[in-house]
C-alpha cells in the first residue's frame, strides 16, 4: 500500500505520460497481493493429495486431446458425479484447460494440486480462515510442536463435498445387558476400533 502511495505521489511530478506505466505497475502489485493471498498458510506438513490410482499426471492422457469447453456428458471419468453447485460450475472452471496438471483460480492463476485449498478458499472464505487457524478439520501431531494439516480434499470429495455418513462403532453395554463373564477362561472383547481400516477415507466412490 505505502509503496503504491509513494508511486502516486511521484506520478504528480512525473507528468501524465508516465501515468500509464505506473498504472500497470500498481496493477501488477495488486495482482501480486492476490497471488500471495495464501501466504498466511502455516508451513505445516500436508500429506499429498488423495489421487485415485494411476490418474495423475492428467497430462498423460490430456496432453494430446483437444480442449472441448462445452458442457456435456463425459465419455471418461464416469465415476465422478458433480454435486457441488453443479448448475453454476463445470470441470474447466477449476481444472485448467491447457495444462491439466494444474488447477485454475478465478483470477486465472494456476496452482498445483498440493495447494488446492486456495481454490476451495475462493468461495469458502470463513471455513478457509478456520482451517488456517487449525479449527476446521482434523489436526494431528503435537499441540505445542509441529502439526499436520489435511487438504480439504482429504475429507471432502471436491466433486461432491458433503461429508459421507459413517457406520458408528458399537454402543456401550446397557447395565441390564451386563453378563458376569469375569472368569479366567472367557475371551476378552477386542477394541472394535482395531477392526476398521485406518485412516478412513470419507470419499464415497471416487477419490479425486
Amino acid at each position, binding site marked *: 500500500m505505502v509503496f503504491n502511495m509513494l508511486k502516486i505521489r511521484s506520478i504528480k511530478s512525473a507528468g501524465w505520460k508516465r501515468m500509464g506505466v505506473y498504472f500497470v505497475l500498481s496493477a501488477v502489485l495488486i495482482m501480486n497481493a492476490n497471488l500471495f493471498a495464501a501466504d498466511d498458510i502455516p508451513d505445516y506438513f500436508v500429506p499429498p493429495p488423495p489421487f485415485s490410482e494411476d490418474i495423475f499426471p492428467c497430462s498423460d492422457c490430456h496432453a494430446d486431446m483437444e480442449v472441448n469447453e462445452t458442457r456435456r456428458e463425459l465419455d471418461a471419468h464416469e465415476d465422478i458425479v458433480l454435486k457441488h453447485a453443479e448448475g453454476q460450475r463445470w470441470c474447466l472452471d477449476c481444472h485448467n484447460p491447457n495444462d491439466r496438471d494444474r488447477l485454475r483460480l478465478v483470477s486465472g492463476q494456476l496452482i498445483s494440486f498440493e495447494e488446492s485449498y486456495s481454490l476451495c478458499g475462493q468461495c469458502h472464505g470463513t471455513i478457509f480462515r478456520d482451517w488456517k487457524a487449525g479449527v476446521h478439520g482434523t489436526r494431528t501431531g503435537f499441540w505445542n510442536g509441529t502439526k499436520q494439516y489435511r487438504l480439504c480434499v482429504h475429507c471432502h470429495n471436491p466433486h461432491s463435498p458433503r461429508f459421507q455418513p459413517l457406520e458408528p462403532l458399537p454402543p456401550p453395554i446397557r447395565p441390564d445387558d451386563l453378563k458376569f*463373564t469375569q472368569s479366567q477362561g472367557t475371551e476378552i472383547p477386542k477394541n472394535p476400533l482395531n477392526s476398521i481400516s485406518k485412516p478412513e477415507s470419507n470419499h464415497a466412490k471416487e477419490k479425486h
Partner: protein
Amino acid sequence: MPKKNTKNPCSKTVRRRTFLKGAAVGLASFALPPAQADATFWESFFQKHFREMNEDELKSVMTRLEEEYREEYDVQFNIKATKPIDGVQYGYGLDLSRCIGCRRCVYACVGENNQSRDPQIHWISVLQFEKGHKWVNIFEEATKYYNPNEVPEEEYFYMPVQCQQCENPPCVKVCPTKATWKERDGITVVDYNWCIGCRYCMAACPYGARRFNWGKPRVSKEEYNADVHYLGNRPRYKGVVEKCTFCIQRTREEPGRYPACVEICPVGARKFGNLLDPHSEIRYCIENKRVFRLKEDLNTSPKFYYFFAT
C-alpha cells in the same frame, strides 16, 4: 444397687482405656499378613501418597509397579510421572455443529488409556439428543445407546461428554482420602493406589464423567498400551475410580501429542491446546466462536468448551 457391683466379676479393675488399647493391639496382630509376605508387600502397604513422595521414592514405587504389572499382565510397561509444563493450562474444544456421533473417540480413548474391555469401561459417552432439544444439560433426556446403521441421523444431534477438567472440581472436594486432586496444569487426576473406592467423587461429579472398576479390569495382552503415566493410563485395580486425564501421558510431553480422541475424530470436531497461549487453537475457538460450558450454573468452571463453528 450396691457399689461393688460396678466392678467386674474377677474383682479386678480394668480401665476402659486399658481394655481398648489391649484389644486394638490384639486385633491388629490378626490383621497382619502372614509372615512369609515378601518385601514388596510391605512396600506397597506403606506406599505414600503420590504428592508426598520424593523423586527417589516415586522412582522405586514405579519400578515396583512395573514389576507387579509384568508379573500380572506379562507386559513390560513403561511408567512415567511427567510433571506439568510451566505456563500451561489445558483447554479442550468440541464443535457440536460437526460431531456426527460415530464413537471413534470413545474407542480411541479405550485403546490409548487401557480401559477395561470386560467389564466394559468408557471414559467418553456420546449423547444423542433430538434436534430442537432445549437443555443439553439434562442428560436423562438423551441416550448413549443409539445404534443406527449410519450416523448422523437426520433428526438428532450428538454431544460427547467426558471429564470437563473443572477449575473448581466438586469431585476433589468430596474425596475423603485426597486420592484425587487438580494438578497445576488443570488436569484432575487419581492416585489409584490411594483411592479406597467410596465413589463419593462419582456422586459429586455433575457430568457423570467418572467410572468405577466394579470388577478386575481386563484387557487382552496385545491391546495394552505400554506407554503409561502414573496418574493416567497405567493398569487400574478392582475397586478404584478412573476418569479422562486429557491423555496426560501424551499431552505432558515436550512436544506433546494431541489427545487420542482429538487425533481420531474424522470430522475434526475436537480441538485442544493451551488456554494461556493466545495463538492456540482453543483460544481461537473461545474468541471467535459461540462457546458454552456444560452446567455453567453449578460454578464448576469447566475447561472443556463446546462450540458451534458454523
